[in-house]
């Protein structure tokens, strides 16, 4: 495998990783600090994707779609928190799983009724269309580079928020000593609402920016949520840093694995075995990493550190 191919797979993995991170960051905050399992988080990604795609299709402007989708998803997240989730905080995790799972079914059906059964596809904004020549044989889509840029910017923003602001201080405190934060007179209800809003913002952003790369369809949320759950367990529940490292790690491992496995084995074994091995690798790599982390460090890589 030449270096350009290798570098391209690293970029692919990085891009997949940061997209995953946008979903996982919100999920891990809610799970780690509020102590609430929100399977419905993927629905927010789907909502962001659908709203952005619909507006982009009607008006022809990707940017308008993005600008409307993100705040709309935040509003949706806040509505869900105040109307449903708030009532579930004191119930056990099984109740939360059941309730949020039923919301997935509800929102999938709603999306089907509102947006129809056909997958949507939207074009990239003209500004970010095309590919850029990096070096040698390597041409990389500008849009995917921009997605990586957004991911990096969000990671820096979240670092600043948690390390340098009062809200961040409360988030850090809440991730390890939830009850104590309440006992010290902090309005926990408002803190939780702020965390939900932040999670919804990132989910809406993730949905809006993946629209131009893949089909926007009913059920896309579940695909994302399963991998996001794997990632937050690898990273340590409640840890943004962990979610970032684990997302990028899983993204790069999956992407490299899908090309390295066939490359390494195709000289040793026959085609159907290569197909079998790489197919197996593509479907299982995230879970293999999860299993390995759980054996070595069951609490996750960055448990206790936001």
């Amino acid at each position, binding site marked *: 495998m030449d270096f350009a191919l290798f570098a391209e797979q690293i970029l692919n993995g990085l891009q997949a990783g940061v997209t995953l991170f946008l979903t996982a960051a919100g999920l891990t905050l809610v799970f780690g600090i509020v102590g609430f399992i929100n399977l419905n988080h993927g629905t927010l990604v789907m909502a962001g994707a659908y709203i952005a795609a619909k507006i982009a299709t009607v008006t022809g402007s990707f940017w308008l779609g993005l600008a409307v989708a993100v705040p709309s998803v935040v509003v949706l997240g806040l509505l869900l928190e105040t109307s449903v989730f708030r009532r579930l905080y004191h119930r056990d995790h099984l109740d939360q799983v059941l309730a949020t799972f039923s919301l997935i079914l509800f929102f999938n059906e709603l999306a089907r009724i509102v947006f129809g059964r056909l997958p949507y596809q939207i074009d990239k904004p003209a500004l970010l269309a095309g590919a850029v020549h990096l070096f040698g044989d390597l041409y990389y889509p500008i849009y995917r580079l921009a997605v990586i840029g957004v991911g990096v910017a969000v990671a820096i923003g979240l670092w600043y928020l948690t390390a340098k602001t009062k809200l961040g201080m409360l988030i850090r405190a809440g991730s390890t000593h939830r009850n104590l934060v309440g006992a010290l007179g902090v309005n926990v209800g408002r803190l939780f609402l702020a965390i939900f809003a932040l999670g919804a913002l990132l989910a809406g952003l993730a949905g809006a920016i993946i629209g131009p790369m893949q089909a926007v369809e009913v059920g896309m949320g579940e695909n994302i949520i399963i991998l996001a759950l794997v990632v937050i367990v690898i990273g340590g529940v409640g840890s943004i840093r962990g979610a970032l490292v684990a997302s990028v790690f899983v993204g790069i491992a999956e992407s490299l694995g899908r090309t390295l496995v066939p490359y390494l084995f195709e000289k040793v074994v026959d085609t159907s075995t290569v197909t079998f091995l790489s197919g197996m690798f593509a*479907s299982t790599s995230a879970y293999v990493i999860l299993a390995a982390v759980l054996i070595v460090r069951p609490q996750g890589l960055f448990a206790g550190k936001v």
Partner: protein
Amino acid sequence: MIRKSFWAALAAATLVTTGGALAQQGPVKIGFVTTLTTPSGYIGEETRDGFTIAMDQEGGNKLGGVAVELMIADDGVKPDVAKQLVERMMQKDGAKIISGVIFSNIVAAVAPDVVKAGGFYVGPNGAPNNMAGADCHPNYFIASWQAGTQSDMAGLLADKIKANNVVLVAPDYVAGKDQIAGFKRYFKGTISGEILTKLGQTDYAAEITRIRSLKPDAVFFFLPGGMGVSFIKQVKESGLQNTALLAPLTVDDRIVESLGDKAMGIRSTTFWNWDYDNAASKKFVEDFKKKHGRVPTTYAAQGYDTARLIASALKAVGGDVSKTDAFRAALKKADFVSIRGSFKFANNNHPIQTWHARDVVKNADGTYATKTAELLFKDYKDPYSAECKQP
């Protein structure tokens, strides 16, 4: 006296009800278990909408002049759900005809139950390999195609365009592997890579990078629904623009509508297309467009022909499905004018039919549509029929 007339009345009433059952005065019940939810829901929707056009053309709720009741239910792509639905429809509601199933793995789960209970399975879509071969059954009919045929034809198409170096892409599950096997059946060139992806995968960047490194002159992909939309989108944005894209039936008009100009250049295979030039097809397309405001896909066509096949057999037995042998013989005869032009059953009760290549074209109004291209195989009989022991 009063007592006597009471018994007489009761006897008369009994006679009337049993007599009614014998003469089949109620509508013939048809169980239609299909997939209406999940991202694949549009396939069941198309199939159902095609099926009901045939009933509408007879003035509503009639097939072959016989009153029918179509019981539609959603299986959610779950074999266990489909099994329960079929059991209820046959035992509680008294349906003897079951149709509608989309996915091959669900056909494999329900069709044996149907035929074992003495009912008829008339399939509008999925048709697993084994049931076309060694496990064929006289009461099991497929009005669409044997599942692997669409890819058998794609292999022929690859030969026709003189593709020499081809990469195959399909999801890692039974139907995906069957399609890859189908492609290899007639293809004479080199296959430099076979890529199995995760079912429901949405990002193909890593696969596309690998495909590019293999420098193929064609890529064959079996990725139904949203998977195909994502894949094509990403291929068109990568450096693969000059590689031919070949697909089986999966690039239908609704997928083309969703992809727009990105669908241009994709070649697929089909047994029928909306532009077929025969009276039956034109009438179907016109009526479908009038009711639903869109061009019917091949799934709709399959639903329509399934309904018309059932209609021809119901007509032959005057709506009395309890005449099992006569009904079976009538189904096998397939005495209806198919929108495909010619239609007859092979020994395994799967159609012998003609396959064409299919292109994507841009209409004058800026929309995109599919268009029938060159002939691939006239009167193709699927190879599994040789393993089926029935005449």
